[in-house]
Structure formats: C-alpha cells, structure tokens
C-alpha cells in the first residue's frame, strides 16, 4: 500500500519533471503525459483510500541534522487518503478541461507541467508523515501558484497578482516554518505521529506559540483574514487554475493541516479561539465582498474566502469532521463553479456580469451544472453543501452549549457569523445566477480585441455564443454528481465519517439549524429576486464601493506594509553604499595616495598584489624569527 501511495505522489511529480523538459511545441505529448499520469494517480488513490490505513512509519532519512532528523514517509490514514482522492479527481478534471480551454496556448507543456507539480505538491502535503516533508509540498505549491497565476504573459495584472500571491502566503509561511521548528525542537522529532503523541508533554506556552505560528501559515495559504488579499487577485490566472487553487489544492491545504494536527491544536483552547475569531471575520468579509463584485470570477473567489472560513470555524469549535466534510463538498462544487465560469468566459469572451445576461438558453449544460453548484454553495437541500454547512453550524451550536471542548463564546461567534453568512451567500449566489443566465441577452461586440483578458487567447471576429466542446462540459457533468450527492455520504457513521477516522460520528442535519439556515437562505434569495424583478438586467444589489473594494484592505496593506518596506529598503541600501562602503572607499583613497607616494618606482597594476605578497612574506619571516 505504501508503494501505491508513493506512486500517487510520484506520478504527477514525474510527469512534471518530464513536462518541464519537453519543448514548448510538444503540446500533444504534454497533454497525453499529464492527463494519463494524473489519471493513473487518481485510480491508485482510490485503491489506497479503500485499503487498510497505514500508520506512517519513519521512511527514508532525508536530512540528518545531528540531534534532529528529517524523514520522508507516508501517513495513509482515512483523512489523508480521502482528501488525496479529492485532489486527484479535481486535478485530473482540470488537466482534461485545460486541453480545450488552453488550446492554442504557446506554452502548454510548461503549463501542464506546472499543474502536475502543483498536484504532486498538494499530494505531498496530504500524505506526508513528516512535518518538514509536508512543508516542502506546502511551499512548492506557493511557487506553482506564482507561475500559474502569471501564465498569461501579456496580461498586465497577471504579474503583480502572481507576485502578491507568493509574497502574501510567504509572509504566513514564516510563521508556519517557525511553528514547525518549535514543535520539532520541543518534541525532538518532526514525525507527525510522534508530534501528535507527545505534544501534550510540551510546556503549554511553547505549544500555544507553535500553534499560533502555524495558524499564521494557515491564514496565508487558506486566504483567511488578514492574509486573504492575494486570492481575489489570483483570478488573473487561467480559469482552470482558479478551480485547482480554490477547490482541491492551496486553500484547502491550510484547513487540512489543522485537521491533520488537530490533536495538537485541541490541547489548548487559545489557538482555536483565535482561529474562531479569524473565521468569523473572514466569513462575513468574504460574503460581503462577493456581493459587491462585477467580475464573475471575483465573486467566486470571494466566496471561496468565505467558505474556507466555514471550515476554519468548524475547526475552531471542535468539529474537525465537519471541517473536512465541508472541504470535500466545497472541492466538488467550487471546482464545478470555476470550470463552469470558464465555459461562460470562453463562450462570451466577457468577464464582467454587467456584460452578460440571458445565457441560460445558449449554454444549457453550463447553466444547469452551475445551478447545481450554486445551490450547493447556498446550501439548499438536497445538495452536498446543505449537509456540510449544516454540520459546521451544528458543531458551532454544540460548542455554544458548552459541548465543544472550547469556550462557548467561540461557538456563539462562529454560529452567528455562520448564519449571517448563509443569508449573504444566498444573496450573492442568486445575484450571480440571475445576472449571468437571466434577463436580456447582451449582444456580444462584433469584433473583440485580440482574445480577451481572462480567457484563452482567442479568435477575432464575430462572436458566437455557444456551448464549448465536450472536453470542457464533461468535467462539469462529472463534478455535478458529487456536488449534488456527496452530502448523503455523511448520513451513516460507517460511511464517510468512518473513513475520516471519526467512528460513531454521523454527520446529519439537525432540524432546528436546518430550518433557521433555510429561512435565512430564503430571505437572501428573496431580497435579490425582488430587486431583480423591479428592474431586470440591472444589478439587484446597490453597488457600494466599500464592498467592491473589499473594505479597502488592499490599500491598508499597501500603506502599512508595502510602502514602508520599500522605504526601509531604500534607506538601508543607501546607508550601506554611502556609509559602510563610503568608509572603505575613503580609507582606500587615503591609502591609495600613500601607496602612490611609496611606489613611484613601480609601474602597472601588479604593484598592489606584489606589495601585498611582499608584506605577507615579510610578516611570515619576522614571525618565524621571533617565535
């Protein structure tokens, strides 16, 4: 089983290595290579997930640093293998979909290799038995996201967005690295099993510090406040990449790591309480910002911020199974939503909802599958989102009543924020649905500029809005299945919960919470629908700049961090050149004058060295005589 596990991880990695070495013209080979490697990895991951769990035993010695040693191994338990399946499936569909979406791209092999590396890195995070090994995958994902977000070279906003994604997550990763080091040094091992087993013996102050440091990295990767700012800008990348980043990799990694190390986080409530506060803020922030966007993909991006916060909230209130459950359902419906959005962009050449409308007849498959995805996002029964969101809110309610193991106020906070977010989610999802698919159709402009910003480099001329080819629609249909049905997997404790190493915990809806959240959804939907019916085709939600600009947090970040850093860099650089080197050059000039006087007889540049060697020789001789 361990061998199969290594293959799941190794195949996408090998495909990436080969893909990087292919010439950029070898598009077809790259497609065959990466799709088949990811496909085989998917099959193997399913075999591994259905097999018996393998407790991670220390594998290969990777880095013997003396008192501490880093190993590489696999931890193939239920949580890891189930999430690995989700990663593989989404990655496979993304690779497949990209064949059509990026048809004609002039750097396809590189793109496909980067997607493969991204997949391998996420699988490493998921399957790693060692924290440093996990960190490798964690950060390789960062660089892959940088490369992929910047894929469209001619798109001006792509470069800053790519840099921002890497730097913001990297700021968080300082914390993550330090957290891993504190845990590793405190316990004397980086092995996840050992860390979980012995974390209780660490001094509580050190342990809380380690957990908080780890959470900094989690906030960066999973786009939680205040390190969420990179995710909406990351929309500059190709749409399949958004699906990959938002559904199965990258943003899921932070949640996964907390779930993985949950026994450590559970030891002290401080870190989880902090996570709860962050989750509550992020949920509302993301949902409100989503309400103010005109760019279809940015609505979805902000919804990811908000939905990931549900998972953080579930972790904070002591419901890790609910968190993982929502992670899985979200992986399905968010991948579906982004790929469907890609179909819309591909068909219309537009990214702004104000330029869309009336698409439901022209793009029927996209319309119906996206409707499923939005229903799951809102949490309408019987879609998967209904069950998993209910599980999160149920966990918060349990915590609020004092059964969660943590402080009750965290339960209240997450629960109330979660319910409010339900209403907001319903509102922005309905707004997206109506503005894209209903109302008067916008006749596409006769001649688009060379391609369009966010889609594939596209043809000129009259635009015909029609459903994209089957390569792009089949993944939508495939994803619609778990989007609708995955929720039922939690109903029996022997089904999904048992696979998540939580025997005896069935995840089924509770009537009270279901009713309240359905009422709130209905309210959100009704508000938008009523406004829409008053003036069809116009934005049903008043455009507030504070929402569109997402509470101006980008400007705050710019003023508080980016600009001061630039200034500091300029000052230090000038000081180093002016003062430190100035002193050297000054004394050099003085000495030079002296040496010119001393060495009138000599010519040429050799003099300096000759003088030096002579001086050294004299010193040696003198020393030899004296000593």
């Amino acid at each position, binding site marked *: 089983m361990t061998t199969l596990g290594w293959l799941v991880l190794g195949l996408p990695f090998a495909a990436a290595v080969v893909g*990087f070495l292919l010439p*950029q013209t070898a598009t077809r080979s790259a497609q065959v290579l990466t799709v088949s490697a990811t496909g085989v990895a998917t099959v193997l991951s399913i075999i591994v997930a259905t097999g018996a769990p393998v407790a991670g035993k220390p594998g290969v*010695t*990777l*880095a*013997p*640093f*003396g*008192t*501490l040693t880093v190993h590489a191994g696999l931890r193939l338990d239920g949580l890891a293998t189930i999430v690995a399946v989700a990663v593989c499936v989404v990655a496979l569909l993304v690779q497949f979909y990209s064949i059509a979406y990026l048809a004609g791209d002039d750097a396809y092999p590189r793109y496909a290799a980067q997607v493969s590396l991204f997949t391998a890195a996420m699988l490493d995070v998921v399957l790693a038995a060692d924290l*440093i090994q996990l*960190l*490798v*995958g*964690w*950060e*390789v994902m*960062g*660089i892959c996201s940088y490369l992929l977000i910047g894929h469209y*070279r001619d798109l001006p906003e792509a*470069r*800053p967005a790519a*840099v921002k994604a890497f*730097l913001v997550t*990297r*700021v968080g*990763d*300082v914390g993550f*690295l*330090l957290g891993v*080091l*504190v845990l590793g*040094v405190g316990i004397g091992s980086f092995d996840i099993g050992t860390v979980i087993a012995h974390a209780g013996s660490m001094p509580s102050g050190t342990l809380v510090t380690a957990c908080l440091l780890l959470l900094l990295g989690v906030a960066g990767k999973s786009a939680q406040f205040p390190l969420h700012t990179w995710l909406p800008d990351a929309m500059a990348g190709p749409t399949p990449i958004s699906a990959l980043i938002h559904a199965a990799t990258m943003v899921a990694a932070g949640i996964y790591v907390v779930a993985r190390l949950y026994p450590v986080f559970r030891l002290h409530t401080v870190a989880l309480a902090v996570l709860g506060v962050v989750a509550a803020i992020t949920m509302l922030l993301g949902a409100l910002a989503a309400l103010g966007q005109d760019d279809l993909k940015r609505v979805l991006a902000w919804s990811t911020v908000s939905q990931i916060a549900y998972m953080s909230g579930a972790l904070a209130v002591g419901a890790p199974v609910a968190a993982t459950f929502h992670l899985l359902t979200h992986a399905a419906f968010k991948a579906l939503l982004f790929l469907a959005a890609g179909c819309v962009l591909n068909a219309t050449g537009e990214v702004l909802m104000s330029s869309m409308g009336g698409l439901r007849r022209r793009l029927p498959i996209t319309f119906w599958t996206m409707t499923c995805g939005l229903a799951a996002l809102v949490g309408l029964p019987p879609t998967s989102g209904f069950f998993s969101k209910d599980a999160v809110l149920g966990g918060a309610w349990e915590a609020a009543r004092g059964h969660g193991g943590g402080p009750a106020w965290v339960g209240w906070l997450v629960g109330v924020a979660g319910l409010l977010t339900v209403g907001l989610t319903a509102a922005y999802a309905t707004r997206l649905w109506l503005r894209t698919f209903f109302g008067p159709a916008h006749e596409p402009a006769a001649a688009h500029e060379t391609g369009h910003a966010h889609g594939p480099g596209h043809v000129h001329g009259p635009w015909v809005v029609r459903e994209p080819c089957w390569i792009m629609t089949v993944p939508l249909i495939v994803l619609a299945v778990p989007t609708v049905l995955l929720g039922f997997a939690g109903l029996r404790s022997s089904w999904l919960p048992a696979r998540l190493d939580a025997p005896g915990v069935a995840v089924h809806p509770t009537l009270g919470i279901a009713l309240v959240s359905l009422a709130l959804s209905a309210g959100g939907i009704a508000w938008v629908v009523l406004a829409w019916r008053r003036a069809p085709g116009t934005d049903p939600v008043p455009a507030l700049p504070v929402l569109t600009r997402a509470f101006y947090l980008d400007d705050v970040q710019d003023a508080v961090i980016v600009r001061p*850093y*630039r200034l*500091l*860099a*300029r000052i*230090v*650089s000038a000081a*180093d*050149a002016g003062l*430190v*080197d100035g002193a*050297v*050059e000054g004394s*050099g000039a003085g000495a030079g004058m002296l040496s010119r006087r001393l060495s009138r007889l000599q010519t040429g*540049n050799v003099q*300096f*060295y000759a003088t*030096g*060697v002579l*001086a*050294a020789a004299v*010193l*040696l*001789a003198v*020393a*030899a005589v004296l*000593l």
Partner: protein
Amino acid sequence: MILVGVLALPALGALLLALLPAHLDRSARWVGVAVTAATFLVSLALLDGRSSGAKGDWQHVDVRWVPAIDLRFHLGVDGISLPLVVLTTLLTLLCAIYTVHSLPAPGRAGTMLALVLVLEVGMVGTFLARDLLLFFVFFEVVLAPMYFLIAVWGGPQARHAATKFVLYTLLGSVLLLVGLLTVYAAAGTLDMVALAHAHGSGIARSTQGAAFLLLFAGLAVKSPLWPVHTWLPDAHTEAPTVGSVLLAGVLLKMGTYGLIRVALPIVPAGAERFAPLLAVLAVAGIGVGTLACFTQTDLKRLVAYSSVGHMGFVLLGISTLSEVGVQAALFGNIAHGVITSLLFFAVGGIKERFRTSEMAAIGGGLAKRLPRLGALLTLAAVASLGLPGLAGFWGEAFAVLAAYRPAASLDRTLYLTLAVLAAVGAALAAAYFLRMLRSVVAGPPPAAAQHAAAVPDASPVELLAWAPLALLGVVLGLYPALVLDLTKPAVALLVTALPG
C-alpha cells in the same frame, strides 16, 4: 597519493597552459577541460577509504616541507572537507567547459585557464590543509589569480574592483596570520588535527579570546560578514562570469570553512565568548543583504548582494556552536555554491547577450525570448530564495532552527530574537527575487526587442556547463542527506570540542 594528485594535477595543468603558445587558443581550452575533468574525477576518489560514520580524516599526508619555519605539508580529508573539495573541482570543470563557449576580451584562453587552475590549487588546498601555516599559504594563493581574473578579463571598472578586493582581503589575511601565530605561540604546534583534538586546552582563555577575534576578523572579510562585505558587490559586478562563479561558489566558503575548521575547535573558549557578536553581525548581514537587493537595478550586483544575505545564514549557523548549526552551515555552503554559481552563469549569459546587466535595459519577456535561459534563471532564483524542495532551503531553515536552540552556554533570548529576524529575512528574499523575475523573465518582451536581431538561446556547451548545477540544486533539495551524511560524523566530532 590522491590528496597530492588533486593538487598536483591542476598545478601541472596550469604550468602546461602557461607555456602553451598563444595561438593555440582552441587547444588551450580543451586542455583546460581535460585537466579540470581529471581533477574532478580524482577528487571523487577522495571518498576512497571512508568507512561510513568515519569521524576524522580517512586519508592523510604529512611530510616536513620548510623546516625553517616549521611548515609541514600536512593534508587530510574528512566529511567536512570532501563536499567543499568536490564542489570546487566541479565548479572549476564547469568554468572550463563554459570557457570553450565564451571568453571575454582580451581572450588569451591559455593564460586565463592557467590562472583558474592556480586558483583551484589554492581553493582545494585550503580545504585539505591540516597545518595552520599551510592553510594560510593556500588561503593566500587564491588572491593573485583572482586579482588578474577580475582586473584583466573584467568590466570597465575592473581595476578598481580588483584592487579593492585584494587590499581588503589582504587586510583580513594579516589579521588571520596574526591570529594563527597567536595560536602557535600559545600551543606550540601548527598541527590542526592535534590542536582540534586538544579542544583549546593549554591555551589560556584570554589568549583564546584574542586569537578567536583575530581569526574571526580575518575570515569574516572573506565570508563576507557585514559590515566588511562591500568589496563583494563591486568585485562581482566587474568580474567575468568565470570569476564570479568561483568567487561566489568557492572563495566565500573559505572564510566560513576557516571558522568551522580553525576558529571553533582550536580556540573554543574564544568562540563561546564572541559567538553572539558573530550571530548579531550575521543577522545584520541577512537584513542588509535582503533590503539592499530590493533596490538593485543591476543583475550581477543583485546576485552579489544576495550572497551577503545567504552567507549570513551560514555564519548564523556557525555562531550557534551547535551540531545542527554547523551542519546547516556546511550544507548552506554547498547549496549556496551550487545555486549562486548557476545564478552567475545565467546572469553572465544574459550579460554576454545583451551587453548589459541592467534590468531596465534588458527588458522583460526572457521566458519568451530565450526560454531555456529564462527557465534556468527562474530555477536558480527560486532555489536561491530558499524554496523547500530545492537546495537553498535546508541550510537556511536549519540555521534558524539552530538559533532557536543554540549551544547551552549562549544567551537564548538573544538567539531567539535573531532566529525570528533571520526567518523573516529568509522570507523576504522572495520579494527581491520575484521583483527580478518580474522585470526580466516574465511579461511580454519589450517592443524594441521584436525588431532587433534575434538573440540566441543557451547553446549546448552552455547547457552542458549549467545543467549539472540545476540538477544538483534539485537533487540536494530533495535528498540533502547526500551531503549531510558525509558531514555528520565529522561535525559530531567537532562539536565535542565546543562548550555546552
């Protein structure tokens, strides 16, 4: 015998090349490749005789050489020396291969390669010497060839930069020599093995302090430690590619190697006393290097300044006086040698093509214009910013870890602060490398470039010279045990000398 061979081969090669008539330019280049390739293969044979877990030297030579000044020809190889020696012979080989493709004005391959081979003798000798005076002699041998490499084959300001380099390092050498002689005066022997074995016993604590300070000052210039680093950006900016590669790849390591091999085990009490000073300056170097890089406009200068930051991590590791710290430092040495050499090769290739290393003048879009060169530069930059999974990560992350848990006798609060600062510095290295990639590699090519004559992408010879480094950057990143297994026993032996 292998120990002597690894020095004799390049020495004889240098002699041969120096005597070769100037018109045999092509043959000179191939002779250079042959000699350096042979030396590289012989250096691999230094592994012979190593039993796994060998702590001390597994090969050694010890003969009287210049009795008048008690100089012995005493060489040895252990797990600390070997990786550096192999790095040196490999980089020299790659430089020779690169010279087949490209040689800056005024040409004269024979002379230049002879200088490179003399340089190799000095570098390898420094890592193998087991006698303090011999160590010093080899340490000094590198100065002359490097001076000429920069001054003759360098850029427009090369004279000034080369002079600054020589005078600055010579100043350090004087201090180093006085430090070595202080040790000799106190302990009565120059035998490094015996001195290390004695753990400083027989040398008064105050003498150890003075000796350490002198050795430290001398070696710090070479490493370079902030604030005695300013010769480095100038030298790198002006040096030819081969000079930059050997300077960054190996010469800087002679300073940190000296600290580990000489200063720590021979005067441990002094090391204990001044380690916090070293640590503070090292972290200052990380900070200054990182911040200064952010404002650089010249590619070569940027890479040079980044070295100040990276070597700061190596020095921080040493300053923790712990097994993890020294392991991290030794690994950091090798990783920096591999990655920064690749960076200088790539940047040199760019400079050769565009006749400038100013980022604004090069313009963006290298990934499109020169995909292979752009990809190599990207890989090198990503490795250099310390991405886990590539070689740059391990040395830096574990230097931070070592600072979090330094030797027991050191001040934990101070080191904890330094660990946090260093970790932040490591992350911010990403900022300037991404800024560089953004302005040079990414984006559309400048409009002017579409009309200009096509610039050729990396040639097969260049790829042959560069690919081994790219490969090593990945392999050492995925499997650092390759080096760490070698260094571990030797470091375990070394740290027994250290307090705490």
